[in-house]
């Protein structure tokens, strides 16, 4: 998902008889669906895992602006441009909500950004793929935001209060993102043969990377169990991936496009679609920094941060000067 392969300190769930009294009381609160709030006691590993997860999620929102931002100046109509601008602006807001949630855990936003720039924190693998045509903007809204919503809807019930509240806001805004993406896909799929071919091409390129967004298969996902016990993960990678496939296949059919997986078919027994899993070696390569756009993305982020430093410093200096002058006049 937007947070993939978030490491917890251990694999497997800490057994109850190994917990301290404080940890047991904490787990009881989580089990009773009570929200954990910033000043409440929490296990160090819970705090650390959350910082990693929320931080990665926040970075993804911000880096996620880059592939779509690429098309703002080239949107085909003024209306599409205004829509895309609004969507990309939303992503900046989502980054802000999430950084704020992470900050309640005792880490600052600047520290998180620093860790990203040093390569010590990650963002979602999906944003390392290029947006080659306008149809990609449609495919991203439809598939990438669609996959993100799958996960975020569950996270509205996560145990950490500030994270859950950020998710509520994000989910409200995210549904516009997915619908505008599908709207672009409809326009193109029902347009000229050339437009339809572009839509098909975008689907072909974004299908497997979208499936990868949910993270590795459950059997290889050693951190899932503890995160689920803490309710900072509410559904497993494979569950969400299956749900996404089941929802998306009929949408592909409606568009008159073809799923790039030739073996995809409805399993009459399970009622779910059987599908070919993505190439996980590609996923791990992208996560390691070897996707098509990793270097560009990081360069764009670092440049923006460094080139903006004088503005941040100047505004703060001005605010301090003004505050001092006001204090002196009183």
């Amino acid at each position, binding site marked *: 998902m937007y947070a993939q392969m978030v490491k917890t300190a251990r694999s497997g769930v800490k057994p109850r008889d190994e917990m301290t009294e404080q940890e047991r009381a904490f787990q009881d609160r989580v089990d009773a669906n009570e929200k954990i709030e910033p*000043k409440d006691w929490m296990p160090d590993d819970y705090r650390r895992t959350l910082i990693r997860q929320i931080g990665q999620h926040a970075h993804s929102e911000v880096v996620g602006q880059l592939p779509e931002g690429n098309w703002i100046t080239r949107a085909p109509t003024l209306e599409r441009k205004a829509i895309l601008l609004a969507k990309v602006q939303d992503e900046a*807001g989502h980054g*802000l909500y999430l950084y704020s949630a992470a*900050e309640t855990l005792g880490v600052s936003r600047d520290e998180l950004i620093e860790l990203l720039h040093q390569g010590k924190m990650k963002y979602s693998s999906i944003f390392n793929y290029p947006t080659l045509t306008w149809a990609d903007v449609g495919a991203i809204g439809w598939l990438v935001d669609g996959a993100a919503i799958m996960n975020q809807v569950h996270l509205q019930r996560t145990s950490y209060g500030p994270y859950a509240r950020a998710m509520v806001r994000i989910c409200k805004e995210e549904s516009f993102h997915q619908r505008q993406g599908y709207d672009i896909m409809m326009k193109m799929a029902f347009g000229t043969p050339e437009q339809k071919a572009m839509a098909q091409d975008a689907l072909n390129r974004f299908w497997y990377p979208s499936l990868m967004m949910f993270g590795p298969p459950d059997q290889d996902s050693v951190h899932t169990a503890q995160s689920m016990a803490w309710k900072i993960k509410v559904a497993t990678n494979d569950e969400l991936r299956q749900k996404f496939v089941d929802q998306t296949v009929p949408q592909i059919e409606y568009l008159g496009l073809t799923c790039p997986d030739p073996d995809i078919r409805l399993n009459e027994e399970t009622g779910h679609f059987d599908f070919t899993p993505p190439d996980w070696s590609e996923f791990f390569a992208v996560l390691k920094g070897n996707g098509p756009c990793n270097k560009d993305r990081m360069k764009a982020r670092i440049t923006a941060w460094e080139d903006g430093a004088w503005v941040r410093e100047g505004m703060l200096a001005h605010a301090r000067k003004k505050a001092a002058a006001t204090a002196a006049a009183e």
Partner: protein
Amino acid sequence: MSSEWPLWEVFIRGQHGLSHRHVGSLHAPDAETALRNARDVYTRRNEGVSIWVVEAAHITASSPSDKGPLFEPSESKVYRHPSFYDIPDDAGAM
């Protein structure tokens, strides 16, 4: 000197005359910028008609460990609720 902007908490009054409600936070160098940024981030879809911002460092919050002493006493005071009193139907609407 740190160049990190201070944190502000944002409160918005919705359309229907309700109280300002906490909606989130942001970083800004001063109150004026905080207000402008709050407008850009938190009222992009007609969420409000008025904004308050307050520097997070100026908020005094109750501590989680005081939850018992602060809030438990009211649990036993059921007579503070209208449903505590049985008024016969014959007395009419009340």
